[in-house]
């Protein structure tokens, strides 16, 4: 039985907007709109969606891409600023599908970390958007290598550590940079969530996978109950109002009491209603199958994450027909696995028709996202698929493919100009445009370099 959609009946002031699950506000990079037409002319365009244009041009206006094509087809409007990019390679801004950008500065300095709450394993009411530090030193460092968008996720030590954000790596402040708040929620079932460290005397619940599963199941049941309580309340309230109108003189029923707010359950509802995406993480075949059963039990809509050691069940993975955030492919193989077993996982998944995306799973090393995609090609992933895995595939998974992930007219003008192949470690990014505005090619590291080069 599908419970009725009650979201719309709840008072907005009680903070139930989250229940709508549809109120996605998409701010395209900046209060100040791009007011000048920009034309990049003469480079090799990797459009991602419609091939390579060897001698291409791209026009940006109002934060959007307004024209893409061969130089012969594109005419710069009067007053446009034309930038010659002959010899350069032009591609869409790269999308990192899991980072901790804005949640940390110096890993070992605890006061600079807002990575995960460890007091409970079920923390869906945590919003990374509320910890996101827009002025982080790390963001320009990542941006300078052409990463223009990223998912910000809490670290994985909880089963439900909180909700992700989808960000743009430029903007005047956090509000501008947080393109989508609470865009998805990790559900981790990798074993790392157990509280079993330090011997039996120090263990606390949940110290086993059984405990983790039971705790999670209870949380989802509580959320379903909670929803029923509110539905019931709304119905009684409506009845009372109706009776009041019908007959003023009849015995009045007492006004129904509103249930107590429960933020955890509220946060879970859009996911239980299939309105938002769960990012389901597992490492091994057994954990994967347990996690998928749990997700199916509650009809969750999900993508998979990690699955680094599931090689024996890749056909099963393919049969789920869901995308996979794969990696990191640098994860060490298990004792009985081949040396290249994790390196070749993207290719193995692709062969089976699985849509894949890459993530850096990092904050400081987000800039190295494309290296991983390039390396996967050395183990059988076709080049075009590797590029898609950090552009259009990611845009599709995160529901923004109408705006990001390729060089197409109408999309946000997130455009990167580099001196070569975007997936090669040697390639130097020369210019980055985010929502049509050129980002200064400087960061703290560049400033230090220049200071000590004098």
């Amino acid at each position, binding site marked *: 039985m599908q419970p009725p959609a009650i979201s719309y009946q709840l008072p907005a002031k009680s903070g139930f907007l989250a229940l709508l699950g549809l109120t996605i506000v998409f701010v395209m990079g900046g209060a100040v709109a791009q007011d000048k037409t920009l034309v990049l002319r003469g480079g090799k365009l990797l459009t991602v969606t419609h091939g390579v244009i060897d001698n291409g041009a791209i026009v940006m206006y109002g934060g959007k891409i307004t024209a893409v094509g061969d130089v012969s087809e594109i005419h710069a409007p009067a007053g446009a600023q034309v930038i010659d990019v002959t010899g350069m390679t032009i591609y869409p801004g790269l999308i990192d599908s899991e980072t901790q950008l804005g949640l940390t*500065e*110096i*890993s*070992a*300095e605890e006061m600079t970390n807002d990575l995960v709450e460890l007091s409970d394993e079920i923390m869906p009411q945590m919003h990374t958007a509320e910890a996101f530090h827009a002025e982080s*030193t*790390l963001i320009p460092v990542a941006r300078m290598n052409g990463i223009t968008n990223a998912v910000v996720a809490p670290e994985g030590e909880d089963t439900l550590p909180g909700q992700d954000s989808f960000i743009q790596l430029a903007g005047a402040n956090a509000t501008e940079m947080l393109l989508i708040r609470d865009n998805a929620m990790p559900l981790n079932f990798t074993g790392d969530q157990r509280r079993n460290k330090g011997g039996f005397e120090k263990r606390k619940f949940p110290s086993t996978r059984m405990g983790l599963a039971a705790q999670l199941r209870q949380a989802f049941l509580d959320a379903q109950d909670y929803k029923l309580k509110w539905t019931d309340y709304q119905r009684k309230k409506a009845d009372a109002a109706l009776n009041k109108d019908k007959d003023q003189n009849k015995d009045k029923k007492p006004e129904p009491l509103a249930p107590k707010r429960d933020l955890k359950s509220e946060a879970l509802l859009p996911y239980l209603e299939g309105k938002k995406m769960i990012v389901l993480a597992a490492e091994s075949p057994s954990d994967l199958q347990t996690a998928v059963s749990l997700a199916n039990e509650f009809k969750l809509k999900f993508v998979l994450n990690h699955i680094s050691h599931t*090689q024996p069940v890749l056909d099963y993975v393919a049969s789920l027909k869901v995308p996979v955030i794969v990696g990191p492919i*640098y994860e*060490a*193989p298990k*004792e*009985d*696995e*081949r*040396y*290249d077993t994790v390196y070749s996982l993207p290719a*193995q998944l692709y062969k089976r028709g699985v849509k894949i995306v890459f993530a850096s799973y990092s*904050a*400081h*090393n987000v*800039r*190295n996202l*494309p*290296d991983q995609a*390039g*390396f996967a*090609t*050395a*183990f059988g992933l076709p080049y075009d698929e590797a590029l898609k895995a950090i552009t259009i595939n990611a845009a599709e998974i995160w529901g923004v493919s109408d705006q990001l992930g390729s060089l197409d007219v109408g999309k946000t003008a997130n455009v990167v100009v580099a001196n070569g192949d975007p*997936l*090669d*470690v*040697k*390639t*130097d990014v020369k210019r980055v445009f985010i929502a049509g505005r050129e980002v200064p090619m400087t960061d703290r*590291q*560049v400033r*230090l*370099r220049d200071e*000590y*080069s004098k």
Partner: protein
Amino acid sequence: MLSSVWLTMALATASGQSEGAAHRDIVIRNAIVMTVTHGNITNGSIYIKDGKIGAVGETVNAPAGATVIDAGGKYLTPGIVDSHSHIALDDDVNEATSPITPHMMMKDAFDYQDKAIYRALAGGVTTSLLLHGSANMIGGQAVVIKHKYGASRDDMLFPNAPRSIKFASGENPKRVYGSRDQLPSTRMGNFAVQREALVQAQDYMSEWDNYNERVKRGDKDATPPRHDLKLDALADVLRGKIMVQIHIYRADEMLTEIAMAKEFGYKIRAFHHALEAYKVADQLAANNIAIATFSDWWGYKQEAWDAIPWNATMAMRKGVRVAIKSDSEDYTRRLNQEAAKTMRYGGATEEEALKMITLNPAWIVGVDDRVGSIDVGKDADLVIWDGYPLSSYGVPEKVLIDGDVYFDRSLPSLGTTHYTEGK
């Protein structure tokens, strides 16, 4: 025919039966040979005799019966040398019970069966310096290994490698001991502990000098001082018999370590990590101190906050010998990519980049006369690459050590019986 010969040879190596192979003559031909010391030879050949490089050039003279390996026009480089590694030591990296432990021998912890050795080999690494950790101001003595996975423990030790000792500085020692309310908990404490140990070593040396002098004079009453392992090791540092490898981040600490070395009369071989080397590169060059650094790691701790990816090339341009190292079971598998980043950050040439993972780390380890470049007389530690090695795409196809194949991509189980074949 050729392939079956090859297979037999490869399998013989895999099962550790390499004794006979040591006298084999091998020719690798049709390779782009990146020598590191004298440029690239396109369509080059190498003659391997008794595990050493016998000849290298466009053509080489070799006996008629030599086994021929056709490299198929692929790139061939010297084996990679990782000058900062902690693999194959299980959990025994740090004897973190005292800040001064120079008598720890990493060889005693060396787990020659650790698969990390094979995984690094599969990334082209043929020699590694396995160091003590950085918990102690003066840690243990390193062991140098060749990645002959499948061979016996003793066959994996780099023969007659010079001795190295690990020193540390900065956050790690002060955190480890400070968290226990012990000395050191500050950088002043760090250096005081180090100086105190070196003074003790000087006193110890005097005691022995005194005793030896008395014996020489024929003094029958002379009794020898106690043999103290710890002070013996430090005395050898002061005598210049052990190379000093220092874990260090901040520029100011580098200057203090240089001053300390002068105060006690020893030389520093290399600063490891050395993320602020670019700030004091002139002083490093003047003191002939190399660095073993990361390509672009940063921000993981306060003392790594000023790390910049141009560190390697900026130091190199000031005349510092620069190595890119892993300090990681993960990164040691793709040091070629890490080196390639120096071509981007600061414009290292191909040869300069390659040198940072071959000849320069070999110098840091003290084995640059035997490995690190493709020159006649050096060990035949060689990598044939699928793809261009200084890129995201280059991965080893075959890795030879002392002329024997220890890794072959077409035989992924080579060197170990534990890997399952195929998928």
